[in-house]
Each structure stands twice: as structure tokens, then as C-alpha cells.
């Protein structure tokens, strides 16, 4: 049986265990004089029976499905004669795919070694048997454990407590999944980065001012050197993010102040969702708005002022990106400003200060940690944004602080490096991981700094 079908079968069994457990506990309660004489409510007994049925079976299913291939490969390769057993893992996987092909009939068995044909037969065998074994094992565990869970329902059993413990572990494992995923990503990026630095020197990467990730396909190719200096990319990212924040922070913050302090209920109920709608527009739509409307407008405008602007500019991308991240600033700031207690407002107003004085001197300082959080979220969004930059700022890695020039960013370069055919031993591909690692570190630092600012402020005032 396919694992997916098996999964649904187990779900059906879990439901059955739930229903049976419910009725058993009801039946046990009846002679005692009602549900109140049970240690827990019938629902808890039912959930407990269902969990007994489901959890061991599902764990076995997941383990089996994830390690099946490795174990089969080990068994198959183990049967081969010692002289053709491959030494390196790369060759092993090559050999394995050859066996695979024989097994599936893609490679005619006449043209290859007899031992490989045998191995292919074993492989087919193991695959089929493994499936049967897994189905049998999982189903029997589900039924058996479900029965035990059902049978052990007793009036004195504290099912409520047990369900509580299981749920606690369940929630813990959900949290663990998120953390482990992050750790996994960090490690995979880290190892590829180390490989990259085996090919390109630290100083070239960190202090190089030229970015041209070309790798020669032939030895005599023109421009085969390739340059991996990250400085133009990071200045590009910085330039565009700075422009975006220059737009988003004042507009977002002041609109949040308007919404929370000045606007009446009706205006607020209309304007706030509209502002939040900005976050829902797909970035690619922002991208073509930037590329087709804003960028040409800026180029024309600069020309009338006698300045030279390229048709794709950092300014266009930054402005549109700024519009995009306004809701991050405004919505979060609005929430924290609203959370400042009314008593502080009253206290300030009763002393004869105006609304804006109250805002500036009382509400804003009290809300600052939350506002910082919103700005930080907006900043990391700006740094990570790719689509708008690809479309509106271009791909040319110019090292410039002129917002009218075309620039490129770290994320855009990661995309272009990884599009198309890849070879994982070329610095061109690995550079993407190095850039990703740098981006990760920068964002992390940004978070740490903001946290420090927030904490320092809190010590002073809270």
C-alpha cells in the first residue's frame, strides 16, 4: 500500500478508536451513576484511545518512509562482489542509479555485469516486500495500541492529565520543527559557504569592489577570471533599502499616529484595512509598476533637471519598495500606540498639553519599542526583497551611491546565480550560498541591535 493511502487508513483507525473509546467510557460510567464518577470526561478517554492508536503507528510510518531507501541501498550494495563495491559515496550513488535503471527496465540487462542484474532483482524484491512489511507493521501497531488504549479505559484512569502531557509534547515538537528547520538551513548554507571560500579568497569576497561571477568553460575563454567582490552588491542593497525606509518610516509612522490619535472611528475603520491592503499586493505587481511607471518617470524628470538617469534606477526600486513596506510600519505602530494606556493620554492632556505634544512626549516614547519592531520588520523585508529590484533597478553591479544609477542587490544576484544549469563545484554557484550567509548575518545583526535599543529604552522607562 502506498504510504499516503496508509496514512488515511490510520486516520480512519484513529477516528474509530476515538468513537469506541467514547462509548466505552460512557458505558463504564453508566453503572457508576453518570459521567461525574469518572476521573475524566468521556472526551478525554476517547482522545487518549485515539492518541494511543495514532501516535506509535504514525511514528513508525514516518521513520520507515524516511529510512527505507538508505537501508535498501545498503542491503543491495552489500550483496555485490567486493571488487565492484564503490569506494566513494559519489560512485556508490552512480552505481545505485545504474541498478535502479536495470530494475526499471530502462537499461537492458544483457549488456551489463551479471552481479548487477542480480542486485537489480534484489532491489525490486526488497521494494515490494518493504511496502508489504510496512503496511502490515503499521496497521498492526495501530490496531494493537488502539486496542490497549481502549481496553485500559477505567473510571480511575486520569486520562485528562495524560492528554495534557501528550499535548504539551505535541506543542513542543511543533516549536522544535520551526527551530530545527532554521538550524538546518543555516548549516546547509554554512557548509556551502565554506566550500566557496576554498575557491575564492576572503579578501576578494569581502573587499572586492567588482562583481562579475563568470567562470570559464574553456581555459582560453575571454574574461575567464571572474570577480566575486560583494561590496557593490551590499552597497546596492543598502542604497535601495535606505531609500525604501526613508519613504516607509515617516509615511507609515505618521499615518499610524493619524489613525490612532486623530482619526475618528469611521475614518479609521476604512483607512486601516486599505493601508494593510498594500501588503497584500504581489511584489511582481509592484515590480512592473516600478519598472514601467516610476522608473521612466524618474528618468524623464531627472532629464528635465539636466541630470543623467538610467532607465532603471535604485530610486525607482527604493520608492516603490518603500510604498510596499508602509503597512509593516503603520499597522504595527498603530497597534502599539493604541496599546498605550488612555490614562497617560488623559494625564498629559489634563496638564494642558496639546494632542501633538502628548504624542511627542508621552505616547511616542512609551510606544517606541513596538515601533522599532515594526521598522525592523520593514527593514528586513526591504533587504530581502528581490522582485522589485530585478525589474526596476537592473542587474548591473555598479558601485555607486547615486540613486539615479542602476544597481543590483544581494538577493537579485543570488537569483541570477542559481537560475539555469548549475554545477555545484563552481564558485559561481557557491557564491550564492556565501551571499546568503552574509545576508543572514546582516539581518541577524540588525535584529540584535534593535533588540539592544529596545532593551536599553525599557530599562530607562519601564
Amino acid at each position: 500500500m502506498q504510504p499516503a493511502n496508509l496514512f488515511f487508513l490510520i486516520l480512519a483507525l484513529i477516528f474509530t478508536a476515538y468513537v469506541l473509546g467514547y462509548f466505552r467510557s460512557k458505558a463504564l460510567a453508566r453503572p457508576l451513576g453518570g459521567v461525574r464518577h469518572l476521573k475524566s470526561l468521556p472526551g478525554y478517554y476517547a482522545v487518549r484511545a485515539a492518541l494511543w492508536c495514532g501516535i506509535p503507528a504514525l511514528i513508525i510510518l514516518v521513520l520507515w518512509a524516511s529510512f527505507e531507501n538508505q537501508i535498501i541501498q545498503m542491503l543491495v550494495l552489500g550483496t555485490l562482489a567486493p571488487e565492484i563495491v564503490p569506494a566513494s559515496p559519489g560512485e556508490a550513488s552512480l552505481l545505485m542509479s545504474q541498478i535502479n535503471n536495470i530494475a526499471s527496465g530502462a537499461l537492458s540487462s544483457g549488456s551489463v555485469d551479471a552481479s548487477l542484474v542480480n542486485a537489480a532483482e534484489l532491489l525490486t524484491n526488497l521494494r515490494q516486500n518493504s511496502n508489504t512489511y510496512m503496511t502490515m507493521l503499521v496497521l498492526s501497531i495501530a490496531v494493537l495500541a488502539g486496542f490497549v488504549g481502549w481496553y485500559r479505559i477505567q473510571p480511575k484512569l486520569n486520562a485528562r492529565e495524560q492528554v495534557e502531557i501528550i499535548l504539551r509534547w505535541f506543542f513542543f515538537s511543533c516549536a522544535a520543527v520551526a527551530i530545527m528547520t532554521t538550524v538546518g538551513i543555516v548549516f546547509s548554507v554554512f557548509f556551502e559557504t565554506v566550500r566557496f571560500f576554498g575557491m575564492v579568497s576572503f579578501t576578494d569576497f569581502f573587499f572586492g569592489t567588482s562583481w562579475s561571477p563568470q567562470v570559464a568553460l574553456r581555459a582560453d575563454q575571454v574574461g575567464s577570471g571572474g570577480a566575486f567582490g560583494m561590496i557593490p552588491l551590499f552597497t546596492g542593497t543598502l542604497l535601495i533599502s535606505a531609500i525604501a525606509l526613508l519613504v516607509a518610516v515617516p509615511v507609515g509612522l505618521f499615518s499610524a499616529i493619524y489613525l490612532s490619535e486623530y482619526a475618528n472611528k469611521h475614518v479609521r475603520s476604512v483607512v486601516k484595512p486599505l493601508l494593510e491592503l498594500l501588503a497584500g499586493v504581489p511584489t511582481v505587481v509592484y515590480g512592473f509598476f516600478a519598472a514601467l511607471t516610476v522608473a521612466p518617470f524618474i528618468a524623464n524628470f531627472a532629464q528635465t533637471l539636466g541630470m543623467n538617469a538610467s532607465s532603471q534606477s535604485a530610486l525607482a526600486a527604493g520608492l516603490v519598495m518603500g510604498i510596499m513596506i508602509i503597512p509593516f510600519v503603520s499597522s504595527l505602530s498603530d497597534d502599539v500606540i493604541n496599546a498605550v494606556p488612555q490614562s497617560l493620554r488623559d494625564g498629559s492632556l489634563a496638564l494642558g498639553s496639546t494632542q501633538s505634544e502628548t504624542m511627542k512626549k508621552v505616547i511616542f516614547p512609551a510606544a517606541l519599542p513596538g515601533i522599532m519592531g515594526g521598522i525592523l520588520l520593514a527593514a528586513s523585508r526591504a533587504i530581502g526583497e528581490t522582485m522589485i529590484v530585478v525589474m526596476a533597478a537592473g542587474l548591473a553591479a555598479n558601485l555607486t551611491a547615486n540613486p539615479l544609477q542602476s544597481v543590483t542587490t544581494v538577493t537579485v544576484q543570488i537569483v541570477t546565480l542559481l537560475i539555469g544549469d548549475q554545477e555545484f563545484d563552481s564558485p559561481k554557484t557557491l557564491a550564492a550560498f556565501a551571499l546568503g550567509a552574509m545576508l543572514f548575518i546582516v539581518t541577524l545583526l540588525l535584529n540584535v541591535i534593535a533588540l539592544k535599543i529596545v532593551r536599553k529604552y525599557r530599562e530607562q522607562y519601564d
Partner: protein
Amino acid sequence: MNMNDTLISEPLEPQEMSTPVNRPVEDAGAQSAKVEEGKTVGKPFADDPKFKLRNVEVFYGQERAIKNVSLDIGRNEVIAFIGPSGCGKSTFLRCLNRMNDSIDICRVKGQLMLDDEDIYHSKKDVVELRARVGMVFQKPNPFPKSIYDNVAYGPRIHGLANRKSELDDIVEDSLRKAGLWNEAKDRLHSIATGMSGGQQQRLCIARAIAVSPEVVLMDEPCSALDPIATAKVEELISELSESYTIIIVTHSMQQAARVSSRTAYFHLGHLVEVNETSKVFTSPEHELTESYITGRFG
């Protein structure tokens, strides 16, 4: 002619006219008593008052929370507003520095004069009014700043000090008047929200008097405090009464008896009785007042 005069001369909406003046209250004895709208027993009026309030009505949307109240508040007197919960005494108090403005649905009608100036005149500067009529709230609400900054907040806004030393003097003087100087002088620059509740409330009083108001409104200033802190605040009120007009809303009749010279009894939006405090508590003229102070309801 004043704008507000025209407002109150408008006929009231019929449904409000027909509202029974005396809604059922908890006690049968009180139920039999009647309040006649706009008729206040005792001595509501004074010569040369600080506040001259005539035919004041406050609406929350359609609901009439204050019903035709007329009252004078004298200079440098302490007047206590008492009455059962929801009788409108806090609402009435908040009219006196227009703190009701921030409530969208709240409308105030009638004539409210502070030293012959109409508080609710359309050209009246609310900021200036609130600088003259300070307020202390039910729950201590110090700003999350240092003790010094809390007291200096008002003087800074109104530009009362030209130099740092002048500001220092104002802060010290206000804290002394609030009886907090000895406790606070060594930690002027530590955070105000770290103080005890009673200290915080006295800080709020210091903050209010730092802008040299003429009147201080107190909305149940001791209801969140323990008895010792309450005693300190009450002592403070007595001292402040020498230089300020103080209007205090309280649920505690003992407190009203201890600190005030006059007492006003509110009932369901009506001002039932105003008189010298000793008179109100020993020989109330109105049946409702008597029921309330003898604890039959409220």
C-alpha cells in the same frame, strides 16, 4: 447673549421630558422620595464664585447623564461630590476642564463660567483652561519617565521656567507641597512608575500643581490607595486648600467629611443637595441625601 443660553432654551426632546425623574433604586424608602429637576435644596449658590455653573446638561449620545444642574463653587474651598455610582458626579467634574471633549458622543449644554469666562465658548483655548484647572485621576498615572521629568512636564510645556535652576525650583517646590520631597529627593532621576501607589498618586498631585493651577479636580484620588496612603493624600488636600480651589469626587463619605467644607450630593444625574459638609452629614434636608448617607442605598 451667550451661545449656550440659546442652546438650553431649546425645548427638550419629548422622550427625555417624559423620562421618569426618579428611576427605581434599590431601596423602597428612596423610591418614595422625588427629585424635582433643576431644584437643588441647600445652598448651591455663592457670592463671587470661582465656577459659576448654570443649567448644565451632559448627553452621551441620546442619554442625558447630567440633568439641569446649577451650582457655584467658591474660591479656595474644598467641595466634595458624593453620590451612588453612575450618578454623574465624575462626568460633571470632567466638564470643568473639558476632559469630556475626547469622548466623541459627549455633548455639554448650559453655562459654565470660570471667573466670568465661558469654558465652552467656541474660541476658548482648552489648553489654557486645563493649565488653570488641573486634574488628578482615580488611578495614579505617572508617565513612564523619571520623577523629575514627570513634575517638570507641565512647566516645560507651558514655558514656566527660563533656566534649569528655575525648573529645579519648581520641581522641588511642587514635590514639597505634595509632601513627597523627602522621599523623592534622592531619586529624582529614577523611574516614577517604580514608586508605590500612594507615592505615585502624590507625584500626580505634584505634577498637577507644578503648573500653578487655580483649581485642582480630583476624581476619586484615593480609591486605588491603601488607608495609610489615603491619609497622606487627605492631609495633603487640606494643606492645598489654602491656595487652591479643590473639587473632589469621592465614594467615601468619611473622606468627604474629613476634607471638604461643602458637599454636593448627586443622584441619577440630578444635583439633589448642596450644603456645608457638617450640615449635609448631620442634618440633610433631602430625603434622598439622608438615605444615602445613612447607607440605605448606594
